[in-house]
């Protein structure tokens, strides 16, 4: 005879049955849930924080915008130095010997100098001081461009904003001071938001470029910090305002707060790996000795089936 395993097998039920109206139960459940939904929606509504644009960012923090644009060109922004899937500037995150991002490669190619600065400027009408500046940039060698970028990067602490202009006090930088000033003006007008979104043609629903540029600056993250949405604030679980958020993400965001994840440059990959393992463990609970024994040992079931056990004795 096959051995009965109490955590795997179920005893044969020989007891009684009771009338059960499944349709009525489902209908009552639906009515209750609909009423509860309407009540909660009426009481609390839902959040709708206005979207941030490059226009709002550059008007609120023009020097932060100009600095970010320079850093896109010198490769020090998060996007510029990201690696796959955007570029080859880094190798991407690893989980031990698994270099998943690197193996998949660059599938959403982005050149931050070209895509965030030069191409948008080239979409502007010709006939201003920008036209010869762009011509100078396009005609220059790679080494010359690099030297100009290095010069303006050193200028960053000194640049200032006055009467609608980004001013570079020091000499040098070639056409870049004109280009960065023009890009800031373009951003402040709202034209850069559109140029980055419609880069694919008339219709697009792909906001990759504009979102990456936004996230490289300080404005978006400052807004997030005031709403307690950043990583160290367990932001993944939170919603804007006082609304409850995504409590079910508690374990995912928890790992980011503790070592070794909290100090690792591969934190995202490691947390995903950990959560995948835990998810597989949850999936396979019926097959894991120990885990599948807790329900019987803890005896919580005696509360659920107390009437059944009372009738048995």
């Amino acid at each position, binding site marked *: 005879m096959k051995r009965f395993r109490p955590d795997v097998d179920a005893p044969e039920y020989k007891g009684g049955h009771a009338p059960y109206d499944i349709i009525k139960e489902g209908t009552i459940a639906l009515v209750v849930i609909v009423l509860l939904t309407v009540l909660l929606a009426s009481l609390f509504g839902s959040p709708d924080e206005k979207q941030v644009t490059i226009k709002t960012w550059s008007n609120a923090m023009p020097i932060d915008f100009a600095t970010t644009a320079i850093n896109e060109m010198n490769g020090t922004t998060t996007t510029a130095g990201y690696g796959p899937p955007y570029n080859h500037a880094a190798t991407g995150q690893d989980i031990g010997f698994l270099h998943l991002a690197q193996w998949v490669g660059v599938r959403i190619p982005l050149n931050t100098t070209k895509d965030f600065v030069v191409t948008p400027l080239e979409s502007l009408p010709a006939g201003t001081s920008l036209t010869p500046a762009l011509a100078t940039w396009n005609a220059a060698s790679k080494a010359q461009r690099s030297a100009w970028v290095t010069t303006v990067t050193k200028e960053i602490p000194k640049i200032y904003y006055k009467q609608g202009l980004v001013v570079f006090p020091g000499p040098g930088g070639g056409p870049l001071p004109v280009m960065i000033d023009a890009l800031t003006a373009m951003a402040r007008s709202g034209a850069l938001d559109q140029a980055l979104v419609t880069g694919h043609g008339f219709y697009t629903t792909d906001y990759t470029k504009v979102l990456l540029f936004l996230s490289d600056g300080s404005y978006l993250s400052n807004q997030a910090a005031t709403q307690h*949405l950043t990583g160290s604030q367990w932001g993944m679980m939170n919603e804007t305002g006082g609304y409850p958020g*995504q409590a079910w993400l508690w374990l995912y965001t928890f790992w980011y707060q503790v070592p070794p994840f909290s100090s690792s440059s591969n934190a995202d990959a490691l947390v995903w790996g950990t959560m995948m393992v835990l998810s597989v463990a949850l999936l396979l609970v019926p097959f894991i000795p120990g885990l599948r024994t807790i329900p019987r040992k803890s005896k919580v079931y005696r509360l659920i089936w107390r009437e059944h056990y009372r009738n048995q004795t």
Partner: protein
Amino acid sequence: MSTEQIDRQWTTRLRKRVAGKLPPEKVLPDTQPAYVASWIYVFGVATLAALGVVIATGCLLAIRGPQWWHQSYVGHFVNSMHLWSVEIFFFAMVVHLWGKYFMAAWRGGRSLTWMTGVVLFLTSIATAFTGYASQTNFDSQWITTQAKDGINATGAGAYFNVLNLGQMLMWHIVLLPLAAVALTALHVVLVRLKGVVPPFEENATVGTPS
């Protein structure tokens, strides 16, 4: 056509198999075991009902498009109902999960029921994420620019681009709901097929494996 020929048809064989395993009395039973006598049992149907409300409110939002709720009080109210029905959905699902764990509801050949439930839970999280990504407001801007790092780290970000609103919206309203509904149907059919798991046997030292 001979009877034998009709019996060999795919349609006939499938119908007989389905009707044999799931006769109408099993699909829509009018009795249940007497041990089903606890409030913990209502959270499965509550999750199902909440899913219905989530889908219905989602359909209402779809009628006027993804920008409607920013521009209209009615649209905003429908969005609020969509948000709160999602909160109720996860609330009921988690309580249902806790209850089923402490009942060891996988016993007696019900491990597939448990596993479809877990996959449903994970699918629901993915569906909720793509929903947050589709809000077209500050929240979706922040959530997507943060979430991209985790997804990019797995390599999936090269194909599942969370910054692509069109892609996220279509996953949210087409692909993931289809998966969720299919998995829900499978999960419910399994419960009807196998019945509700019996209580632990307290007095017997040896029982009959079912």
